[in-house]
């Protein structure tokens, strides 16, 4: 009996995970188009003079668009698969952040310190 309930619980989780609605897909699509068009326009027209600021803005747009895709296309929510898919996603995101920031940070400083002529090695700690 408990096994049966268990299986039903799974089925229900499927339902939550897989069934989108026409409206949901359409909202997701329109949001994606807007969130794609603005960064392209920013870079192609050079609307913001400061390149660093442009880079930060388009990265923010990318993060928002990824969330939009997750919610409207991949139907992510805290309830799907009894919360396990959300847990896996959070774990993966932590790993991705560590990999990306760690690599960029370490390699940037490595490059900066290996630049010939910029540093006198005797001054290094």
């Amino acid at each position, binding site marked *: 009996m408990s096994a049966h309930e*268990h299986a039903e619980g799974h089925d229900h989780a*499927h339902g939550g995970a897989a069934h989108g609605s026409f409206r949901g897909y359409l909202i997701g699509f329109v949001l994606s188009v807007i969130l*794609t068009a603005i960064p392209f326009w920013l870079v192609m027209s050079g609307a913001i003079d400061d390149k660093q600021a442009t880079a930060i803005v388009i990265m923010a747009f990318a993060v928002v668009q990824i969330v939009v895709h997750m919610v409207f296309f991949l139907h992510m929510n805290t309830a799907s698969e009894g919360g396990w898919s959300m847990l*896996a996603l959070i774990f993966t995101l932590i790993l991705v952040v560590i990999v990306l920031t760690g690599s960029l940070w370490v390699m940037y400083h490595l490059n900066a310190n290996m630049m010939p002529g910029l540093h006198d090695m005797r001054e290094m700690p």
Partner: protein
Amino acid sequence: MASIATTSGPEPVFHLEEEHAHAEGSSTMLGFWLYLMSDCLIFAMLFAAYGVLGGNYAAGPAPKDLFDLDLVAVNTAMLLFSSITYGFAMLAMDKGRVAATQAWLAVTALFGLAFLSIELYEFSHMIHEGATPQRSAFLSSFFTLVGTHGLHVTFGLVWLVTLMTQVARFGLIEANRRRLMCLSMFWHFLDVVWIGVFTFVYLMGMLR
């Protein structure tokens, strides 16, 4: 593990109770999601490699000399359209309409094919200009990252055609619905990765 003894016969008979009764495919979605997360880590490594090596041109061509943002915008649109048409295929599947499902899947395949063709055109154009993967660390990491994504789309297309054949032969049976849901996650996931690619590689490359 429990066992139940039946004492009606002269000798006791033992039945092993089954540990768990999972419905067939009940854990497929979670398992496939975990696969996607591991795939996500592969792309994270490639993004990190590109982030580290992307500025090393070895006196070769830089992103500004190579990338055509108009083409990338069209490419992005193709993938976005294919995402929503796949969504429509899933909606048709929910209603049990075989013909509509097949039609939307076919449209998705066409958009996916258009995406791949444009990407291959871009690659061949770059290689003709001497911007081969061997030219610089920037180009090596670029071709690895974008090529891996393209390879995923290629296999997604193979999978899509396979499932269309399956649906044509067996209809929208439970197994086929499950497979279509897996491919749906895969396809939308590739679109998510592409958001990272066009932002991090193409748009930020033009800003360098």
